[in-house]
């Protein structure tokens, strides 16, 4: 049995909604720091009892953090829109911190009963999970998502042929649960990785050997997981060996042995996880019976969209179906588009505010489930290549060469075989504005190209409830050493190593920023953050003095390593990587604590109070 706590990643900027009602048209115009998914737009429109186009939802170009939490501004969009209608005035609402901590949104807490059928050597033949999740006071859309987002990948990084899953939803008087970074992954992997460690203890095997024996072999990719996920690429055993190699594991063991020899309490933990990205919009329908699914109509897939525009002087701008809360999407999109067009990143203006009345979007739009790298980035790449190919055609006519001989480089469009035969990019690009009649025959003007990415791998659930829940599947392997203070009962993370395979990395600096950010939130879930309620149900963590967000003093150093298995399912080969350590770090630290104390159950967050109780059980000083 494992218990994952109730927590949220509390963006420093809270919810903000500004709403206006137009009585003549019966329409609403709302500005809100909503993050998506835009599958919530029809929910909001129906709550307001208007057709979708009568709810114009605008998202600002920047928002002060989200981490999944700003999906749940959507009920307030409806409420403030109604307030604007009732008062006949524009209404602005800025949530304060107490409101946020009491009632905004939390990740669900989960109790998991997990069992495995194993061989003497620690090979897992079958897995059985009973997952009970607490969604708080209301089951709001798109809940109970965390129980299903990982469904196809419920066997994690392991080659396990048989699996049985029971999901249970309970409602309580706590704040409603919803999206949160990691979304079901932290809960699943806490159970699965604690199980791996328990198997090693029971069979008196090395925990790392138990992991090694069960990892999916490289030759099985693309791999069909038992519950339906189609893992695109990876070489998990090699990534693990690279992480433990170069003396890293030996050094960790040495530190443990020295600490234990000196009478200190020290443990080592491992976690190997699969990090899904770009969700199949049909995964939630897995919760219905096959007959009910048939009746409701198929749900599947996920569409990403981006647009490349050319202005009258040939300047390039980009819009896309993501909302921005600090993920540096602008930088990456500018890099992707400039590369195809032979321009510099700084030449590209990226505008990422969303206006549902005027922009391209689908229900999958927004920033969640790490969909940017395997979704929107691909759409931008497609839009840029479409624009590039059109510009080649236009330039070929002007340069008197064949389109195949045209290249876009260094701000010029030129003949490959005779680079002196060149035109400035802007001159060619502006042709569609000033001189559309002169375009090559049958070519529509190249003013704006929309890239639409709808990968076919995201199939609907099968009749026996298997589903490919995501498009790409990265891999994370963590190991850490923790020491427990015998007087304060604090857990100190002594060493932490995290290995990531996110396919092709789009931008190393931004990738590292996302990994470090997720790691800090993983530490928070493992050791600090929890919404607590007393036995009467009264809320006890309504300030940042009670709800403990880690400061710089609480975040240990982390060594980040990469292994690269590009995804064959996307033209960029990139996978999502922003949630991995939210999923792996709590499990890895729990395993290290279990190793340090020799106990079977570790409840998170492992606060000094809980460690004290565990020390009493283990009989250590």
């Amino acid at each position, binding site marked *: 049995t494992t218990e994952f706590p109730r927590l949220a990643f509390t963006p*420093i900027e809270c919810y903000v909604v500004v709403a206006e009602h137009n009585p003549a048209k019966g329409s609403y115009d709302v500005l809100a720091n909503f993050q998506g998914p835009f599958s919530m737009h029809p929910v909001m429109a129906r709550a307001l009892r208007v057709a979708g186009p009568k709810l114009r939802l605008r998202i600002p170009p920047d928002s002060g953090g989200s981490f999944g939490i700003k999906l749940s501004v959507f009920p307030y969009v409806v409420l403030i829109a109604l307030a604007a209608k009732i008062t006949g005035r524009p209404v602005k609402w800025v949530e304060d911190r107490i409101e946020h901590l009491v009632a905004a949104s939390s990740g669900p807490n989960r109790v998991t009963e997990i069992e495995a059928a194993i061989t003497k050597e620690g090979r897992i033949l079958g897995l059985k999970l009973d997952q009970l999740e607490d969604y708080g006071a209301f089951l709001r859309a798109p809940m109970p998502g965390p129980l299903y987002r990982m469904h196809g990948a419920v066997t994690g990084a392991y080659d396990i042929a048989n699996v049985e899953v029971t999901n249970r939803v309970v409602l309580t008087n706590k704040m409603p649960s919803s999206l949160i970074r990691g979304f079901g992954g932290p809960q699943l992997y806490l159970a699965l990785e604690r199980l791996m460690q328990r198997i090693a203890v029971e069979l008196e095997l090395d925990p790392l050997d138990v992991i090694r024996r069960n990892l999916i072999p490289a030759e099985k990719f693309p791999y069909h997981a038992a519950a339906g996920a189609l893992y695109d690429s990876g070489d998990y055993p090699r990534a693990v060996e690279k992480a433990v190699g170069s003396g890293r594991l030996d050094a960790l063991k040495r530190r443990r042995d020295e600490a234990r020899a000196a009478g200190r309490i020290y443990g080592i933990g491992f976690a190997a996880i699969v990090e899904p990205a770009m969700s199949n919009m049909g995964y939630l329908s897995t919760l219905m019976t096959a007959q009910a699914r048939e009746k409701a109509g198929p749900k599947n897939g996920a569409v990403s969209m981006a647009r490349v525009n050319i202005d009258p002087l040939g300047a390039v701008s980009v819009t896309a179906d993501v909302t921005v809360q600090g993920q540096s999407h602008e930088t990456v999109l500018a890099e992707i588009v400039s590369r195809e067009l032979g321009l510099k990143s700084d030449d590209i203006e990226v505008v990422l505010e969303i206006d549902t009345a005027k922009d391209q979007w689908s229900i999958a739009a927004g920033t969640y489930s790490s969909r940017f790298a395997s979704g929107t980035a691909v759409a931008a790449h497609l839009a840029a290549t479409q624009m590039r190919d059109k510009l080649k055609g236009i330039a070929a006519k002007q340069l008197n060469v064949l389109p195949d001989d045209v290249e876009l480089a260094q701000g010029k469009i030129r003949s490959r075989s005779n680079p002196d035969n060149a035109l400035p990019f802007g001159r060619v690009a502006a042709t569609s504005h000033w001189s559309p009649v002169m375009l090559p025959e049958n070519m529509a003007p190249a003013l704006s190209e929309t890239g639409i990415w709808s990968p076919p791998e995201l199939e609907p659930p099968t009749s026996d409830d298997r589903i490919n829940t995501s498009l790409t599947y990265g891999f994370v392997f963590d190991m850490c050493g923790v020491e427990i203070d015998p007087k304060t009962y604090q857990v100190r993370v002594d060493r932490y190593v995290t290995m990531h395979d996110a396919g092709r990395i789009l931008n190393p600096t931004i990738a590292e920023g996302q990994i470090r*950010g997720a790691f800090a939130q993983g530490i928070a879930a493992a050791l600090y953050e929890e919404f607590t309620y007393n036995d009467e149900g009264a809320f006890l963590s309504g300030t940042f003095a009670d709800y403990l967000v880690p400061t*710089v003093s609480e975040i240990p150093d982390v060594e980040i390593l990469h292994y690269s298995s590009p995804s064959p399912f996307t033209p960029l080969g990139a996978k999502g990587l922003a949630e991995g350590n939210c999923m792996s770090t709590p499990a890895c630290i729990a395993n290290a604590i279990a190793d340090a104390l020799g106990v079977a159950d570790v409840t998170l967050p492992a606060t000094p109070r809980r460690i004290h109780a565990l020390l009493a059980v283990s009989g250590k000083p």
Partner: protein
Amino acid sequence: MRRVNKSEKVRIALMLNGRKLAAEAESRMLLSDFLRQGLGATGTHVGCEHGICGACTVLIDGVATRSCLTLAVQAENREVRTVESLAAPDGKLNTLQQAFRNNHALQCGFCTPGILMSFTDFLARNPHPSEAEIREVLSGHLCRCTGYAGIVAAIKEVAGTD
């Protein structure tokens, strides 16, 4: 000391980033709200309104202060500096801001103004701090995006800390 009735709106004048500005406010209004709503200086961000997160930090007479724990009337006739004062009028970032940019020290940027103001004060008093001293001051701020590593690196870059 000036006496203010609780029901009375008062006019509060202060020096904001070298300019004398004034606006009406209720006596209970927080300095953070006064800066944003009264004076329109929205660079100062409000993250918790109870003094923990540090996003609202400004300088009052050169000293880093939580503007959410300060009443606007307390700042009367005093010199207040906010993040808007850091960059040059042409938008060129100052050394500290540029170091944040160089080190990917912000993602969403919501907590950044407060951190910049804390270290504007701290580095003025202690231009070459150790890493431990930097971490001690930074622990007065919450950042949810970065895991803090880039922020520490940026400040070390400015301070020339090894």
